[in-house]
């Protein structure tokens, strides 16, 4: 246990209504350590920097390879995934690393948040292909590799919530659904069968809290850990909703 330690300053909160407080921890340094491996080490010895026993910090994580979207938190002021936040890069000089919950979402406890609004938004924008059934009906429609590549980029969204946290227009005073579901609407509108319900998605995006609430800050695309072209999606949906509003009635079958 001798030698180098790292310092974590963690914003803690016992429950949704409880007061938040900061607590500091020192953890033995290990090469290639990331924020999750540091939090794991802390659980094995839950003692704060003053040497007092401190109830283990609650946090979310699962896959640890930035594909499940669980471990989003605000690290040194930036919303991101904790598993890919490497200590050597966050604090090369040993300065304290701060961890906070993503406060755009209701806080459950410590770093655990409730992101159910994002899953509800997926229902709202009709983020699925309307399948006749799961029985064997042969292959789906052919698609060009170009369309596949655009769709693939969009389909990697892991509903982590980082784009909502980064967006200045998503907050408790605004009904804005945020960048992620808008991009999902675009994804399904790109698919040949998905496009058959294109209008439903566009109309959902024209509703209260829809695409027009985007204020063009472009924070989302900067923050997205998967590099999803969110601003392109928002622009595409702004264009499509505008067209739909102007001439949509002509497109009705």
């Amino acid at each position, binding site marked *: 246990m001798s030698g180098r330690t790292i310092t974590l300053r963690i914003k803690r909160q016992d429950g949704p209504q409880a007061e938040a407080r900061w607590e500091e921890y020192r953890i033995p340094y290990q090469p290639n350590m990331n924020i999750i491996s540091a939090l794991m080490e802390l659980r094995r010895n839950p003692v704060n920097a003053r040497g007092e026993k401190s109830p283990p910090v609650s946090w979310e994580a*699962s896959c640890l390879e930035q*594909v*499940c979207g669980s471990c989003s938190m605000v690290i040194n002021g930036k919303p991101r995934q904790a598993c890919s936040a490497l200590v050597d890069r966050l604090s090369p000089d040993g300065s304290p690393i701060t961890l906070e919950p993503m406060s755009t979402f209701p806080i459950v406890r410590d770093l655990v948040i409730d992101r159910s609004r994002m899953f509800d938004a997926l229902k709202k924008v009709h983020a699925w292909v309307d399948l006749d059934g*799961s029985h064997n009906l042969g292959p789906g429609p052919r698609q060009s*590799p170009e369309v596949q590549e655009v769709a*693939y980029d969009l389909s990697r969204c892991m*509903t982590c919530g980082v784009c909502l946290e980064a967006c200045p227009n998503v907050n408790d005073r605004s009904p804005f659904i945020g960048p992620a579901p808008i991009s999902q609407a675009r994804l*399904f509108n790109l698919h040949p069968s998905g496009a058959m319900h294109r209008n439903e998605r566009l109309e959902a995006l024209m509703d209260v809290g829809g695409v027009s609430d985007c204020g063009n800050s472009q924070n989302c695309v900067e923050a997205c850990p998967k590099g999803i072209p969110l601003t392109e999606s928002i622009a595409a949906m702004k264009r499509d909703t505008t067209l739909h509003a102007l001439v949509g009635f002509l497109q009705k079958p």
Partner: protein
Amino acid sequence: MDTNRIIVVGGGLAGLMTVIKAAEAGAQVDLFSVVPVKRSHSVCAQGGINGAVNTKGEGDSPWEHFDDTVYGGDFLGNQTPIKGMCEAAPGIIYLFDRMGVPFNRTPEGLLDFRRFGGTKHHRTAFAGATTGQQLLYALDEQVRRFEAQGKVKKYEGWEFLQAILDDEGVCRGVICQNLKTMEIKAFPAAATVLATGGNGMIFGKSTNSLINTGTAQSAVYQQGASYANGEFIQVHPTSIPGGDKLRLMSESIRGEGGRVWVPSDGSEGRPPKGQPWYFLEDWYPAYGNLVPRDIATRAIFKVCVELKMGINGENQVYLDVSHLDPKMLERKLGGVLEIYEMFVGDDPKKVPMRIFPGMHYTMGGLWVDFDQMTNIPGLFAVGEAEYQYHGANRLGANSLLSTVYGGMVCGPKAVQWARNQAKIELKSSVVDRAQKQQEAKYQALINMKGTENPFVIHKELGEWMTDNMTVVRYNDRLEKTYNHLFELSERWQRVNIDDTAGWSNQVVPFTRQLFNMIELAKAMTRGALLRNESRGAHYKPDFPERDDANFLKTTRADWSEDGPRISYEEVDTSHIKPRARKYDTDKAATAGVAQGK
């Protein structure tokens, strides 16, 4: 009983497919998951999904896929369900295509296929190198559609604690705990399906997600469900070692032309000193870098541990794609190469990756019949949580297939079972008894005031299991490990829970999972100890040959307080006669391939 209501526990591919099939059959489904289902471990699968669609003019067929799978599993898999799976595979890929999975395409706009281990055919459909994520999202979307229609109710953030068993031992629902409010609640149902994944966390660090503890399987194993082939653990040849987990580097890297090598020592038969020695290509000319995982893993172990030829003397070998077209790599492998770059810092397009084998997959699991039902009537199991599709070694890209196929079989069977329960009157005493049992357990847990830290015990469990229960196994060490597991059980009794909060308490559920992990580890280790042969992923240098006379058998472990009771059961070999398994020559050169055609 309400015969139209079924419960599915686990929202990965297997669970979601079960939900879809049950909802389509008109049932009302309650879906339980510890995490939002979109974060299930299926999301981690990278390389692809197998199905003999035969679009490359190679003469592939479901029979060939079936034969590769049975042969790859060293003949321990029951052949009838495997055959059904391989026959359904092309239809399953088409189904995902219809759901909108962005599979890679050929210039003609058709689905593209790539090669994977243990086959000579291009049989693996893929969406970049994040196929599991895309497939999971497709099913998640379909289930959300049913949810919006009111046919499915999700309980996300609830953990399965035990099955409700009536006086006849029939499963009548589940007891679950809300991980936020800590409420313990009974959910009666006419049929229950466990789709709770693998158990990598028993090995401490693995390629699995943190949620893959095997706790649900272990809970029902302790209630009387048999656990089958627990000793068969897949160690993936290529992962990045890390302090918190071993990060998978997909087999598809080799499928697209990646090569495994170490610098040669220049000894006879090998290239000049310092030159790359492609040992898999050297030892297995017929399959080269695409030998099945158990073979590749043992070869890497041999190079590093026995020959001491790992890079810089360490337990590492190179996985090299730096000779391949960077544009192709981006398009077909981007998702996985980016993981390497993110966690190691080197660009694999320029510098060979350094990798080592890591625990990856649980071939064993809950014993089920061909209808996916465990030996507890009314309790079903699907996906990695059960044992039946992969025998002694799973072929790459067969796991996604088996999860989905299992769900397709299980959904309708569970609904059918439920509808036959009309005459059953469920006594409230049965439900109360189970709920009270779990409430008492919870109270005992939250009041544990000993001296042990559960996370420290878990780390030790993982180290013992990784050291003794993975690639190379010796009976004396297995015996020691088995005894040590009982010591860990004892130490578990002295845990200090450290967190007494009745809200979003993470230590209590973990401590409960830890107990269950240790119990399951006993079944796995005992099974390994008693299997004195080498077959697939189970390798004992003291018993280097496969022994069909004594061990062409499924291991069944049944729980008892003093340890698992092991028995054996015949394997279904009704379609392909077992033959020797080797990958230095073409499969066609081994006997019996044409059989059954």
